[in-house]
């Protein structure tokens, strides 16, 4: 056996080796003795449902590891296997004290007051009753629930419950934190608080496994991430790569091309748009268009009659029907030439994609040479593409901006004071 090259401090703390999880889902639930006594030999058929298939990964000490995936991809099941709530096939190592927050809770008893729940959960997560009581105040303060301590947890709003659960989970001094979808709920200020805690935990060298489908926070906090799709590990890598792939998975299944459906359209019909699609620089058809790449919108046009110097134009609208930009062949090729009846021609519009993440609908218009009001055909509505990017900064477009900070010279600083 070769001696491992890594020192002890480089041993991973959370390891999954070929972890699979299969649920047996009975087709009918037989829940009473009577039913079993009446039909002793009828076997309940059960369907096997594989929630996780052969997942392997290793998380280094102090690493912030994300698990991303769409709904039903097995994220939460994986977290439950790591937390020791589900029995999984394969081996899992969690080396160190673990704190978990799963399905937005740490298992509160709804009829108990916050105080009892906090102490109970502290003990469940490995504290002694005395330690749990000592931390009670900081838990309540962090959750901002002073004044609500004697209220039964069932009377809490869902946001309050999550706040309490999260603050319990982070106050037990665990080495490993498994956290599920914390950012999906809670108001903006609590989210900011979570971000602060994440940064702090990351700086103090805790190991965190975070399940999320918020790609912005995935990129912001996670060093690496795992992408799951229907139980399969699709990708493990840098979080920004995972974020890109996640967005592709989400939008990549839409039709990449819109074709002419023969509907009645404005224009004289002397030519007709028969296909519209979007391509990347390598000529792959896409519906999810990454930000800051070079993108081409293409349209195939069939000429019904002989035409001279027609112009094609592209309007791109955002979801709120605001026009984002306009392009026409008329500027570069005013005299586009002669096209015979039966010709099929592809017009392309290539641009640097600085659009903000979101959905866009291109409108293609063919017009006779001139002002563009003499419409031949107008193709709109049946095709859209999505711009993917993990940081929604808020503007309509995201220009590549560089920023700089120049400190004022020392003397002028003094002068200002």
């Amino acid at each position, binding site marked *: 056996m070769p001696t*491992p*090259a*890594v020192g*002890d401090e480089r*041993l*991973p703390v959370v390891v999954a*080796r070929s972890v699979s999880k299969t*649920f047996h889902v009975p087709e009918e639930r037989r*829940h009473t*003795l*009577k039913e079993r006594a009446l039909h002793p030999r009828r076997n309940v058929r059960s369907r096997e449902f594989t929630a996780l298939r052969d997942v*392997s*990964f*290793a998380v*280094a000490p102090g*690493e912030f590891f994300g698990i991303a995936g769409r709904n039903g991809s097995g994220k939460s099941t994986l977290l439950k*296997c790591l*937390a*020791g*709530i*589900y*029995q999984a096939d394969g*081996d*899992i*190592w*969690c*080396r160190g004290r*673990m704190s*978990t927050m*799963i*399905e937005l*809770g*740490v*298992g509160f*008893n*709804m*009829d*108990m007051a916050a105080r*009892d729940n906090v*102490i*109970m959960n502290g*003990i*469940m997560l*490995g504290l*002694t009753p005395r330690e749990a009581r000592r931390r009670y105040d900081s838990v309540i303060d962090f959750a901002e629930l002073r004044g609500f301590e004697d209220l039964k947890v069932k009377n809490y709003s869902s946001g309050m419950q999550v706040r309490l659960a999260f603050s319990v989970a982070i106050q037990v001094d665990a080495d490993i934190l498994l956290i599920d979808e914390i950012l999906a709920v809670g108001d903006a200020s609590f989210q900011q608080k979570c971000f602060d805690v994440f940064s702090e935990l990351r700086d103090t060298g805790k190991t965190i496994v975070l399940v999320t489908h918020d790609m912005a926070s995935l990129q912001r906090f996670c*060093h*690496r991430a795992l992408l799951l799709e229907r139980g399969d*590990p*699709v*990708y*493990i*890598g*840098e979080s920004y*790569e995972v974020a890109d*792939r996640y967005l*592709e*998975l989400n939008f990549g299944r839409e039709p990449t091309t819109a074709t002419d459906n023969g509907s009645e359209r404005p224009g004289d019909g002397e030519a007709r748009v028969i296909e519209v699609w979007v391509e990347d620089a390598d000529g*792959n058809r896409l*519906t*999810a268009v990454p930000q800051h790449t070079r993108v081409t919108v293409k349209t195939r046009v069939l000429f019904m009659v002989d035409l001279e110097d027609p112009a094609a134009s592209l309007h791109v609208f955002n979801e709120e029907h605001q026009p984002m930009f306009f392009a026409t062949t008329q500027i570069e090729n005013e005299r586009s030439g002669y096209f015979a009846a039966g010709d099929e021609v592809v017009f392309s519009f290539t641009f640097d994609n600085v659009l903000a993440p979101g959905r866009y609908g291109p409108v293609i218009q063919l017009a006779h040479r001139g002002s563009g009001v003499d419409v031949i055909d107008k193709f709109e509505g049946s095709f859209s593409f999505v711009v993917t990017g993990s940081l929604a900064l808020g503007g309509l477009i995201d220009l590549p901006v560089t920023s700089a900070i120049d400190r004022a010279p020392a003397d002028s600083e003094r002068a200002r004071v």
Partner: protein
Amino acid sequence: MSIQAESGVPTQVTAPGSGFDLEAIPYERLGRPITGPRAITGSWRRFCYLTVNIAIVNWKLRFFGSALGYLWQLIRPLLLFLVLYVFFTKVAHVGNPAAPSEQFYGAQLLSAIVLFTFFSEATMNSVRCVVDGEVMVRKIQFPRLVIPLSCVLLALFNLSLNMIVVVIFALIAGVRPMLTWLELPLVIGLLVVLATGLAMLLSALFVYLRDVQPIWEVLLQVVFYASGIMIPIDEVQAHLSPSLLHLYMMNPLAAIFQQFKHVFITHRSPSAGALLGSARLLVIPVGITFLIFVLGLYVFNRIAPKVAEDL
């Protein structure tokens, strides 16, 4: 390391560059893999803290909201005692001071009722406990056995408080402290073992068979009448053939209650061993008790790893 997926669909898993080469991890040096949910996991300290805390919290939950609080807990056995006492002494005319074992009939009746209340409370509460604790079971890892055990412990709290009332009642009735009181922890301990075994068994079965609850309710009724709670042992002896009497005493509950009366109230009430014919035959009720305990533990242990997904 990054693979440019074609046509927008990722196709391949890559080993993380900054992470670990999964092939090169010295798995044998990682220690033991986690086991998943079990009936008993983690340190014993945590196990005990959890059991005690859950019991305390549920106890508070039950009594703190109500005006009479703990008194409710006492009223049920007392009321049952009152009804039975009036019926048997005034209508059925038992409790005849002339019959030697019927001395202190009232104290005998009350103590048996209090012990049975513990047994019934511990088992009835634990039937549903795992299913009712679903929120915890599905969200957090902890030794699953804590749940039924805390139900038994909660019933044990109530038993201890009720026992104070029983002792006071017995002293007022004229019972004098005896050396055999030292045997009481053993007798009550056996009852706790029996209740714990059934608690584990019933709570595990209830997850898969929901009619365990009504079935157990009915069985408890049967057990109540079959354990000699209200009938003085003289009457039982008078109406049963010796072999039937032996069979009756093999019922662990009957043996426990009888022994309790013998060591706690009056030696005139014969010991369970005497009624069985030989102290050695006590092995049978005690054996049944431990058999039920082991069976309960076995069944609970079997369902514990999967209970979170089968709920």
